[in-house]
């Protein structure tokens, strides 16, 4: 189950910026552009953070002259279908560019690197806990599917749900992605309990183990993730869960192979603006192609 957290929107925003378009219908292109630019400038200081307005403002400033030009030419019946298609195509492109700017101004992504059962505080999100990890292995030792059951939230709103590769967990304004996963061996080294999170996707990973110093951890076989190989200055040992052996003269007990995941928490991107822009762009391209390709090239 997912409990959505609604975002709080500051006053102003895109509707206020697009309002001058209505009054620009009968005016000149320059007047329409200037009106939108003035509205954008007025709106920017009102909101925090300002990036929320930068994209729509730019988009509106680019779209307004095009829309006004289109309207004026159509009213004067001086615009053929091919030219209208070309204009729509460029207007759509402008919207996509504006969406890209909106996206560029997004807050940075947050990350959580969690072993199963572990909880971490994530800036701006609250806590995130990895309840359990699941995977469907394939015969070659890779995974057909992998998912993480998560919970978290702040003091008032709590949530829980499942994030899967290619299917992020939607928390309203934010999306949670699995961008890394691996085994998390629980070791007891020189009497200290450790949970390691080696990134074994590209080979052995290195750690400083108490009493041993630099050591490498690797999977003995990709097909059996339970068996690990610990290499140190004094030699290397292979351990299965529950086994114990000295590494460099220090006793190491391997309790169990848990799992870890690396999560990326992303603010929702400017998808709606980009989708509208793409739709306008495609409509313009089709109109241009249908009208323009019938004529011989000049």
């Amino acid at each position, binding site marked *: 189950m997912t409990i959505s957290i609604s975002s709080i929107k500051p006053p102003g925003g895109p509707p206020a910026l697009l309002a001058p378009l209505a009054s620009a219908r009968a005016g000149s292109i320059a007047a329409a552009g200037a009106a939108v630019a003035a509205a954008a400038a007025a709106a920017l200081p009102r909101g925090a953070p300002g990036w929320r307005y930068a994209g729509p403002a730019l988009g509106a400033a680019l779209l307004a002259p095009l829309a006004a030009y289109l309207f004026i030419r159509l009213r004067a019946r001086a615009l053929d279908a091919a030219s209208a298609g070309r204009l729509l195509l460029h207007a759509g492109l402008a919207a996509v560019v504006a969406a890209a700017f909106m996206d560029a101004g997004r807050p940075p992504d947050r990350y959580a690197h969690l072993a199963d059962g572990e909880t971490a505080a994530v800036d701006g999100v609250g806590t995130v806990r990895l309840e359990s990890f699941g995977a469907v292995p*394939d015969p070659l030792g890779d995974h*057909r599917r992998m998912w993480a059951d998560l919970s978290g939230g702040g003091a008032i709103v709590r949530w829980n749900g499942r994030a*899967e*590769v290619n299917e992020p967990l939607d928390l309203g304004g934010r999306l949670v992605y699995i*961008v890394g996963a691996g085994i998390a061996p629980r070791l007891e080294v020189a009497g200290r309990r450790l949970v390691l999170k080696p990134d074994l*996707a590209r080979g052995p990973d290195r750690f400083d183990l108490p009493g041993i110093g630099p050591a490498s951890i690797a999977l003995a076989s990709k097909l059996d993730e339970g068996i690990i190989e610990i290499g140190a200055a004094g030699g290397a040992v292979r351990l299965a869960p529950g086994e114990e052996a000295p590494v460099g003269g220090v006793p190491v007990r391997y309790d169990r192979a848990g799992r870890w995941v690396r999560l990326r928490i992303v603010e929702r991107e400017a998808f709606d603006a980009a989708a509208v822009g*793409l739709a306008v762009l495609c409509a313009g391209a089709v109109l241009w192609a249908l009208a323009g390709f019938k004529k011989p090239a000049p």
Partner: protein
Amino acid sequence: MNEALRLLLWATVGLLAAGAAAGLAAALLDAARLAPAARGAVVVAAASGAAAIILRTLETGHAPVVGNVENAMTFSWILAAAALIRVRSSSMGDPEAAAAPAGGALRTGFLAACACLLLGWGTLQGTAPAPMTSPYRSPWLGVHVLFYVLAFGALGAAAAEGVRVLSGRGAAGSDARVGRCLAFGFAAEAIGIAGGAIWAHHLWGHYWNWDPVETWSLVSWLIVGAVLHLRRSHGLAGRGLAWGAVLSFAGIAASVWGVSLLEETFHDYEAIR
């Protein structure tokens, strides 16, 4: 089944090599009688390539879109198919093979040579099936790959026609054919990029990551766009358009095959396999 596939792939490489040799010889030695042989070899190569794709699909249970050999199979097949499709000029007549057989053979030879090199390289990488791991399990992968394959074929056909023009064997409708192939390739690559961006959003949380593969795909798309723009707005034609077509094909080849082999990229999906 894997051994049968390997043999079939090498047979296809051999047929493509024969088609390339016959096509290039027909054009460069003005031996028109070799042109049908080139075309025949590519027809058989396309059929055996299609059989290999079907065999691989039956073996793995998914479309051949994972790993070097599967991508080499599909991308080389589309080049072979492009060699066989006769794009008509804007007058909707005058197929180029009938008008200038040596030029048509050069086009066939060029595309067969590219397909041969690609499939040979892919087969040398090993034919063991690559796993269909969790990152690949997205419907957008199909859209992304399908339209990239179509774009690759269209831009390959444009480049082949461009090579023909650059060699002085162009036909009356060559410019129109190049323009049409570029326009189709441009649209298909745009859809391929958009499909890939949506897949990236589902997988990583971002439509665009400025990963080397993505950056080069944008570069290659902009190259094609620039050539089309120059043609439409400034009347680019003849050798200039031909060089533009060759550059466009080089761009998409670099983005599909070059960058991921030379640069560290997200596109190996190791972290979530």
